[in-house]
């Protein structure tokens, strides 16, 4: 049983995750459509999950992968509630442009 990281190297995974995370941050700052902002948050979560799995292989330990399960469960719950909030915002305001969402009281 050989370690796959002997052929790839942990630093390649670190750089891939860093670039994915930065793309997610860029999407949150750049776009006005609230759904694209949600997708950027998903990209950031996935970057961190990928790094968890890489380090789980690095330490030859299952705990990192167990943590990824919990983070996936939290992501699923977050997306369900967030999209429901977006739909009700769309019903009230008629758009999901985040520049229109300045007021706490609709």
């Amino acid at each position, binding site marked *: 049983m050989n370690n*796959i*990281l002997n052929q*790839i190297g942990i630093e390649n995974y670190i750089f891939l995750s860093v670039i994915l995370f930065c793309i997610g941050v860029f999407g949150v700052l750049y776009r006005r459509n609230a759904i694209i902002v949600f*997708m950027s948050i998903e990209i950031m979560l*996935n970057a961190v999950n990928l790094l968890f799995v890489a380090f789980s292989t690095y330490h030859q330990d299952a705990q990192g992968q167990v943590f990824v399960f919990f983070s996936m469960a939290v992501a699923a719950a977050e997306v369900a509630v967030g*999209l429901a909030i977006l739909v009700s915002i769309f019903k009230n305001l008629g758009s999901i442009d985040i520049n229109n969402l300045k007021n706490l009281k609709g």
Partner: protein
Amino acid sequence: MSSILIIFGVLAAITIATAFLTIYSRNPIHSAIYLVICFFSIAGHYLLLNAQFLAIVHIIVYSGAIMILFLFTIMLMNLNKENEVHKPRITRLGAIVSFCLISLVLIAIFVNSKPITDGSYDVLGEDYQSIKVLGKVLLNEYMVPFEFASILLLVAMIGTVLLSKKEKSEK
């Protein structure tokens, strides 16, 4: 250059390109499709790291459940047209500058950090990521968080139903 490194490079290129196209494309439907490809390539990374169960769960949860939810919401709001107005130019410039700065800082941190290994990694020789071992770890050591995760999903479901229920007229 080994073949595994080439596979990793191709997968990483697909991941980064589709993630960028998700942000960049004007049409939200195209963004969702690119995000599906991005999730599939990340599942490919998991397979490359020999985490089979995680790859399957990732495909089921992300590409199956979450992306269908996104697509349904986009179609429900009738957003599949390209009429989004840009942010003001100064805001977009600020976003690009902060993107460059944060990537510079993070990459510089990891380039300059002291290498942990000299290119060789531990091989314990024991099974640590098959479904059997993961199930035992999940249901022995992580029993309580596992149950809390199910409670979290239940609460999220109730909250979603309450949020999207039609409100009665207040009279």
